[in-house]
């Protein structure tokens, strides 16, 4: 194998046909021995070397400088040829650096999460969503949704899938990220940019006017466990896929108005928003308009304070404060709709109940902190009711009834007594277990931190409660449900 420089000689020293020791640094050198056949060796200049040792710098490429034989000056004839070893190496290195640098820059740019972080205009953001929907690009949809909405989906998809696997509803190898059994296709999607409705500085409703979206579903590809597939086999077709086409053009003609796809601005970028789109549909159904000005978010200093302020505001019937205490990222839609919601709710007076004390326990959950009740004291019409939690036992102080205590392991027994044998034993066991799970975990809300302030997240609170309920179930409960379906 030949290498650059060194006059094209073999690179490996052991291959040196002249038996010469390799030069230090491994750089090639012109052989000094006479050529076979008795011809005098010529240096790079084409002049005989006259047996003088080469005097170029050892260990460095010779950079094309001709070596002058001692005692001789170039005399006419061909001009000396420059040795190009160093030049070639430099060129190769430069090319490698350039190509490598360009590829790395390109790779860095592509791997930047900012590449998915919204679009410059509402129209592009909306169009991207529809394109991604049309190509079934679930990952793209998740990535391009408003950050808070995407985070919500991500946080609870994994948790719910884990519970579904534990309950043997989904197969053990089911992957929440591999949405099996459904395909999307879109055709000729068009937005009417001129009709886009700018509600405020961070909300634009884009108008979808033409196109078709086709959804093909195949239940047999959903990773349900075999026992569940057997159970629902009679109810649904497991062999045929179903295709439904949503003709947007026809729908727009039928409605007499385009379909609104809401986009919101978060940190100078525009994202499609599922929550705002749903809210817009609801407003259109009720023939209502978006309020020009929403409620400003009003966070608390801690997770506990946010929960306490929310309870106090709810008891006072202060709907505006309740809405203001919701996270501006996840529940911004409710704050934008706030004045309208308050107006639609009508006059809501105080409940008459007064919060005397609210002590809470706090634990970390996905995306925030769960605040559960430790002690609650409320006065209603002069009567004070107190509930205290101690481990998985709850003690209630009710005027006229004294102190009552209930622990998680007593629920089943209580149900059996109260039910009088009318409730099936299996149902008693399930209800008792689920209730016990809730009592052990505690009832509360999830607070999230946004911009250094704490807010109460209704969606996360709901999901945590749902997860708590799920955790109370066991696989045999699903078997019982399947048996019920089969009857």
């Amino acid at each position: 194998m030949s290498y650059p420089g060194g006059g094209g000689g073999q690179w490996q020293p052991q291959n040196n046909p002249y038996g010469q020791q390799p030069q230090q640094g491994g750089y090639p050198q012109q052989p000094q021995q006479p050529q076979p056949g008795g011809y005098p060796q010529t240096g790079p200049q084409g002049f005989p070397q006259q047996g003088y040792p080469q005097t170029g710098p050892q260990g460095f490429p010779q950079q094309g400088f001709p070596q002058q034989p001692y005692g001789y000056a170039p005399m006419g004839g061909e001009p000396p040829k420059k040795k190009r070893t160093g030049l070639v190496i430099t060129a190769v290195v430069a090319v490698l650096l350039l190509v490598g640098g360009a590829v790395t820059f390109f790779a860095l740019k592509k791997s930047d999460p900012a590449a998915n972080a919204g679009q410059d205009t509402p129209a592009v953001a909306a169009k991207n969503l529809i394109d991604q929907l049309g190509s079934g690009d679930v990952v793209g949809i998740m990535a391009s949704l408003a950050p808070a909405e995407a985070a919500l989906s991500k946080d609870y998809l994994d948790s719910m899938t884990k519970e579904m696997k534990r309950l043997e509803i989904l197969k053990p190898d089911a992957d929440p990220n591999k949405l099996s059994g459904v395909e999307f296709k879109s055709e000729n999607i068009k937005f009417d940019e001129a009709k886009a409705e700018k509600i405020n500085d961070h909300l634009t409703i884009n108008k979808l006017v033409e196109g078709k979206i086709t959804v093909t579903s195949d239940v047999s590809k959903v990773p349900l466990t075999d026992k569940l597939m057997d159970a629902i086999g009679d109810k649904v077709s497991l062999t045929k896929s179903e295709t439904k086409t949503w003709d947007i053009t026809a729908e727009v003609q039928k409605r007499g108005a385009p379909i609104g796809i809401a986009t919101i601005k978060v940190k100078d970028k525009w994202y499609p928003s599922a929550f705002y789109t749903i809210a817009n549909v609801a407003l259109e159904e009720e023939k209502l308009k978006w309020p020009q000005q929403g409620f400003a978010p009003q966070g608390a200093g801690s997770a506990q304070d946010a929960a306490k302020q929310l309870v106090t505001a709810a008891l006072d019937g202060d709907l505006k404060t309740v809405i203001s205490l919701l996270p501006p990222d996840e529940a911004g839609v409710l704050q934008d709709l706030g004045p309208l919601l308050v107006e639609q709710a009508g006059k809501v007076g105080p409940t008459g109940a007064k919060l005397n004390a609210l002590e809470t326990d706090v634990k970390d959950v996905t995306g925030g902190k769960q605040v559960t009740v430790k002690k609650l004291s409320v006065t209603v019409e002069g009567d004070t009711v107190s509930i205290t939690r101690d481990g998985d036992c709850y003690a209630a102080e009710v005027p006229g009834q004294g102190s009552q205590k209930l622990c998680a392991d007593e629920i089943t027994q209580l149900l059996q007594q109260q039910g009088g044998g009318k409730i099936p034993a299996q149902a008693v066991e399930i209800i008792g277990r689920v209730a016990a799970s809730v009592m052990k975990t505690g009832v509360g809300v999830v607070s999230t931190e946004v911009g250094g302030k704490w807010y109460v997240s209704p969606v996360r609170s709901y999901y945590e409660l749902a997860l708590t309920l799920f955790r109370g179930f066991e696989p045999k409960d699903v078997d019982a449900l399947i048996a019920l379906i089969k009857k």
Partner: protein
Amino acid sequence: MGAAIAAVGLITSVTGTFLPWLKSGTTTRDSYEVLSLRDLAGLDGVAGGVVTAVWVGLTPLAMIAAVLYVVRFRRIAGCVGLLFGTIAGTVALPAAVQGDSKGALVGISIAGPAVTLAGAVLTIVGAITVLTSNRRSAVRTPGGNP
């Protein structure tokens, strides 16, 4: 010969990282686009940064190996090539073994991992050849250089 194999391996591997690694519906994404979605996969923060730095660093690593070889630091070049092949192969192997997720709306696309894995194997073979041939050379020239 080893250098040529390693060179082909490096180029193949780097090319493989730009081929489809993930399919979502009819959309495919290369390994770098997949990395840009690391927040969705829960790889945010320091862990995500490290994973990205290592993977994006493969191209500079390949470049360093090639440059070292050209300027005749061959053993070091061989070691860097070995490191490159190990990283690329470690990531590509499980993805390639898992293979195409047929029927799933979201899943692994085989092209990227398979090509990257093939390149990684070639790089490792080439790097080992370079390292062992240099070692043989050293053995055959006892006493070292004058």
